Structures are given as structure tokens and as C-alpha cells.
């Protein structure tokens, strides 16, 4: 953990400058490291066996590549490159690499590298924790997802019609290395896949894809050179909303005095599903409600909160939305909210939800010194079967006034970290605030933790009462002094 924290810190140092100016735009993660323009990854590896799995069950494509790599160079190597197109680079998120053989070893260090802004090919560089000796093999598990990569076709559907999405990918997994054997598996949400590209049979290979229920398999293919591409387009039924959060601002406020921790999430939510071909028809919608058929409209969002959460609220820009339910008992705390209107494709709905919880469940005091450890979920967005994608997440952890020596660690890939002060509620110096920014995150990261450690001296806790007390006493003294003065204008006779 400590290692990760430092890694992230190092990363953030490099990226702060870049991210500062684009922190609130939804532009991607371009790269953090600039390489010379004529850069070409050295051909030091080969992919012995590669399985590319594309999961289309949710409203975003989630891909994972399991690959056995072998060092073909004469020296030990620790840098493995994966190519992406620059448009993919803008929407890729949640890029993580693990050792498949040793899942507990933690995540590998990865970074996006840029060598030429004009170039269509960009790279992720994976740094192996231990350099791989020549001829040695290692199994990597690479996973990532793309945002906004699915297009509805047709673009407009009726209120009760089915929706079809189109996804384009390559049957050959993009790689900068020679691949000896590979296959690509596509998992669809249903068996209804009206259109898909057929890769004709070649020598030794049968025609792709092979269908097994809702799973299509392209390949396996034999040896392919680096950079081989075979575009494939699939169109499949997905009559569910495509929930996209363009911006999530999440505030976590810690109050030692109140023993309370307050969460507030502000969502800017869109539905990227197919738009309505005609205007919204209430009669149709109302009559349809009895049967509850699949629909591209967002009717309800469910937030499973931590047990013990209290006082939830759900508001939007014009006030409280009364259509929310909160079920809380010993085992669960579910916040179910209903937007004011069903959100169809192309419609927007910004809102905010918030709740309180007992601080004791999240905060632990270290045995020695003034140190505290705070463990909170990084993301607590809605948990929907169709998935939610987040373009930009800004998480603020507001610690008590006077907290210092703030350190954090999380497994969520971040793009920037900022320490600042937040002045509110009669603060004198302001509360220590930690702002973490992440982009292109999907709701798989929902349960990731964020651990923040900080020192909070006892004296700092008494700062505010003292300041207020002094101020009040000062006001009284001033009032007394002024009241004592004789400012009346009297005649001399008096």
C-alpha cells in the first residue's frame, strides 16, 4: 500500500501540470510521458498465447486481455507496450495489469506514453515489477474499458421499440509484438445479434465467429505480425439505458466534533441511448408501466449505501425530489431514487444525493501519536445492472481544520491530486482538503477503497471553540465599551 501511494504520488507529480488545465474538461488522459517522435517499441517480446475477451453485457465495452509473454531479447526486459488508437486513448479507462499467475501480487505500474501528438497510435507502457529474464514467460492479465464507444443504430427508436448498439473492434488483438496464437471472445447481453462481421475461413482456421449462446468467438488465429488488424462490427440488442455520468463531484466531509461523516455526490447524468423518434407520449408510457417491459429510459437508480447511513437526500437544481425511498436496517441501507421524469436517450438529469454516517465506522485512531486512518469508498454511485460510466470524477475529502501530513492510497487510477484549504462554517484557516481526480471510470470500481491518513493534533480541535469564544467576548467587550461612552449631545446646561 505504501508503495502504491508513493507511486501514485510520483505519477501525480508528473501529471499535475498537464492536468491542471484540463482537469474540468472531459478530455482524456493524454499521456504523462513524452517520448521522442520516432519512437517505436523495441521488439523484445512475443505473445505466445493471447485471449481477448470483450464483454458487452453492460452499457460500456469492458475488455480484458490475458496474454502469455516471452522475452525474446538477450537481456532482461521490464517494459511491455500496448498500442491504442488516439481516439481509443481518449475514452479508455480503468487500465489495470495483473499477473494472472499471482493475483495477489498487486497491480503493475502502468503509464500512458506519448511520442507524437499527431500520430494515430499511442501506447500504454507496462512496467513489470521484476525484469523478465530472456526466454522467460509471464502471464499478464490486462483489463480496461472504453467510454462512449457504443453507438445506437438506428439512432432514433420509438418509445417501446428495442434498441440496438454497434461496437467496432478488431478480431486480432492489437499488439506491437508478434502473436503466435490468439482468439477474441465477445459476450453479448442476449442472443439477439442481428448483424456481425464474418471473418472468412483461412488455412487451418474455420470461419469465425463461432456462436455459443450469447458468446461469439473469433479465432483462434495463428501467428500474426505486430500491428495486424481485422475490423469487426457487431450490432446487438441492448434495450437498456446507456447511463453516462459526464461529471461526478463527490464530497466527503469529516467532522471529529460531530462524530459524523457526510457524503454528497453531485451527478451530471445523461442517457446515451437512442433518442426518441417521436416526442414523449405520456399515455403510452403510463399504460406500459403495468407490464414493465425493457426500456431505454432510466426509471430508477439504486444506491446501495454502507450500512448505518442516515438522513439521505435527493435534490436537483429546483429542490427536493420527493420520489425517493430509503430502506435501512441492520443489514442494508438502500437508497432508491426516481428521477422526476423517465430519462430517455438524449435526455439529461443532473442531481445530487447525500447522506450521513457515523464517523466511527470509517475512522480509526492510530495507537501512537495524533494519527488517524480514514477508510472510505472511492465511488458510491448507483448500482445498475446495465452499468454506469463516469467520464470525470472529482473526489474531495474535507478533513477537519488543522489536519496535517495528509497521505492517501487507492487502487483507482488517478490523473491528479491536489491539496488545498476549504473555508466554511466559521473556519479561520480553512479545512485541509484533498482533491483526487479520476477520469473514464466505470462502475466496476464502485467498491474500491480510499485510505487517507492524517495527523490531527488535539490543539487543532480546540481552535474553533476558542476562536468563537474570543470573538464573542470581543464583541461583548466592544459593545460594553461603546455603550459606556456618552455619545448623546446635550446642552451645557445639563
Amino acid at each position, binding site marked *: 500500500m505504501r508503495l502504491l501511494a508513493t507511486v501514485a504520488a510520483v505519477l501525480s507529480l508528473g501529471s499535475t501540470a498537464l492536468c491542471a488545465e484540463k482537469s474540468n474538461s472531459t478530455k482524456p488522459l493524454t499521456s504523462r510521458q513524452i517520448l521522442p517522435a520516432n519512437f517505436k517499441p523495441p521488439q523484445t517480446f512475443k505473445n505466445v498465447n493471447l485471449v481477448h475477451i470483450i464483454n458487452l453485457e453492460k452499457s460500456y465495452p469492458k475488455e480484458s486481455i490475458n496474454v502469455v509473454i516471452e522475452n525474446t531479447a538477450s537481456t532482461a526486459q521490464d517494459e511491455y507496450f500496448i498500442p491504442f488508437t488516439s481516439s481509443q486513448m481518449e475514452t479508455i479507462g480503468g487500465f489495470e495489469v495483473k499477473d494472472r499467475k499471482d493475483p495477489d501480487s498487486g497491480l503493475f505500474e502502468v503509464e500512458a506514453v506519448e511520442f507524437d501528438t499527431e500520430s494515430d497510435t499511442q501506447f500504454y507502457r507496462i512496467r513489470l515489477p521484476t525484469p523478465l529474464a530472456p526466454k522467460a514467460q509471464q502471464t499478464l492479465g490486462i483489463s480496461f474499458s472504453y467510454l462512449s464507444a457504443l453507438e445506437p443504430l438506428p439512432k432514433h427508436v420509438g418509445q417501446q421499440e428495442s434498441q440496438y448498439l454497434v461496437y467496432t473492434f478488431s478480431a486480432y488483438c492489437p499488439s506491437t509484438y508478434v502473436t503466435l496464437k490468439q482468439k477474441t471472445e465477445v459476450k453479448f447481453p442476449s442472443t439477439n445479434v442481428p448483424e456481425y462481421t464474418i471473418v472468412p475461413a483461412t488455412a487451418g482456421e474455420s470461419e469465425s465467429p463461432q456462436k455459443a449462446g450469447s458468446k461469439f468467438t473469433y479465432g483462434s488465429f495463428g501467428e500474426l505480425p505486430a500491428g495486424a488488424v481485422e475490423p469487426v462490427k457487431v450490432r446487438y440488442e441492448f434495450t437498456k439505458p446507456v447511463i453516462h455520468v459526464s461529471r461526478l463531484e463527490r464530497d466527503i466531509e469529516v467532522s471529529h466534533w460531530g462524530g459524523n461523516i457526510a457524503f454528497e455526490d453531485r451527478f451530471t447524468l445523461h442517457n446515451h441511448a437512442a433518442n426518441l423518434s417521436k416526442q414523449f407520449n405520456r399515455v403510452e408510457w403510463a399504460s406500459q408501466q403495468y407490464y414493465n417491459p425493457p426500456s431505454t429510459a432510466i426509471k430508477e437508480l439504486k444506491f446501495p449505501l454502507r450500512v448505518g447511513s442516515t438522513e439521505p437526500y435527493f435534490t436537483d437544481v429546483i429542490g427536493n425530489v420527493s420520489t425517493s425511498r430509503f430502506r435501512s436496517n441492520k443489514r442494508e441501507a438502500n437508497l432508491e431514487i426516481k428521477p422526476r421524469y423517465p430519462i430517455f436517450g438524449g435526455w439529461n438529469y443532473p442531481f445530487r444525493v447525500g447522506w450521513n454516517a457515523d464517523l466511527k465506522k470509517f475512522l480509526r485512531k492510530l495507537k501512537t501519536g495524533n494519527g488517524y486512518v480514514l477508510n472510505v469508498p472511492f465511488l458510491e454511485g448507483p448500482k445498475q445492472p446495465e452499468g454506469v460510466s463516469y467520464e470525470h470524477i472529482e473526489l474531495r475529502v474535507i478533513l477537519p481544520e488543522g489536519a496535517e501530513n495528509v497521505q492517501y492510497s487507492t487502487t483507482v487510477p488517478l490523473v491528479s491530486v491536489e491539496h488545498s484549504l476549504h473555508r466554511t462554517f466559521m473556519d479561520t484557516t480553512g479545512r485541509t482538503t484533498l482533491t483526487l481526480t479520476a477520469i473514464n471510470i466505470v462502475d466496476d470500481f464502485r467498491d474500491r477503497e480510499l485510505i487517507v491518513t492524517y495527523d490531527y493534533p488535539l490543539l487543532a480541535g480546540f481552535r474553533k471553540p476558542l476562536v468563537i469564544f474570543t470573538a464573542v467576548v470581543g464583541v461583548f467587550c466592544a459593545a460594553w465599551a461603546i455603550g459606556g461612552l456618552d455619545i448623546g*449631545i*446635550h*446642552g*451645557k*446646561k*445639563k
Partner: protein
Amino acid sequence: MAPKRTAREPTPSAATTQASSTASVPAIPTKASLKAKDNQSPQEVALGIWQNYLDTTPQRTKLIDVFMSFLVVVGVLQFVYCVVAGNYPFNAFLSGFSSTVGQFVLTASLRIQTNGENKADFGELSPERAFADFVFGSLILHLFCINFIN
């Protein structure tokens, strides 16, 4: 501009009507005798009043009166200008004129309050307090006027 006429009517009357009204009245002796009014000419009446005024008024009050008559003159001048040359920057005219009128009534108030004869009405009011009130009122007045003049 026309409404102004009614507004400022009283102000100049302080000076002008003094002469006219007394003149229209059949002779009135000021101090000499209460009954024998018919014998005296208007000039004498006016003169008597003037004499009476000079005799009984304290020096300070006279100073105030001079200021008041100055304000009346200025007000009349402004009004005449407005009638003759037009009231184009109406804001400016209005604020100039109302500052004169306002100052006049404030000064009149000061005069009344400091007048010893009105002790019964202003029991606790000392001249100093009256003057402070006067300053306060004038400050507000001119603040508004400056703001209004554009």
C-alpha cells in the same frame, strides 16, 4: 417642471409674501398700539415688523435667517432658469432645486428648534442637539442629491 411650482411655492413666499401680504393688509401697528391700525401706512407696518425682528432676534438666529434668504434666492434663480432655459437635465435641476428646498426646511427646523420661544414644544432639545440633527439631515440630503444629479 410645472409640478415644481407647487412644490416650491411656499419657499420663496417666506421672503416675497412677507412684503406682499402685509402690504395688502390694512395698516397694522406692530408694537405701538393694538387698536389703532387704521392710522398707519403699509410701509410703516413693514418697517415695524422689521424693527421688531431686529430688536428681538438673537445674532445667531439672524445668521440663520441670512442663510435661509440666500437659499430662497438661489431657489428662485434655479426656478427662473428652469422656466427660461428649459429643464433639460431634469435630474440635475431637480436635485439642485430640492437640495435648496431641503436645506431651507432643515435650516428652518434648526431655527425653530433653537428659538427660545418654542421651549415648550421641544423641552429636552438642546441647541447642540438641534445642530447635530441639522448636520445629520443635511448630510443625508446632500448625499442623495449628489447621487441623484448623475
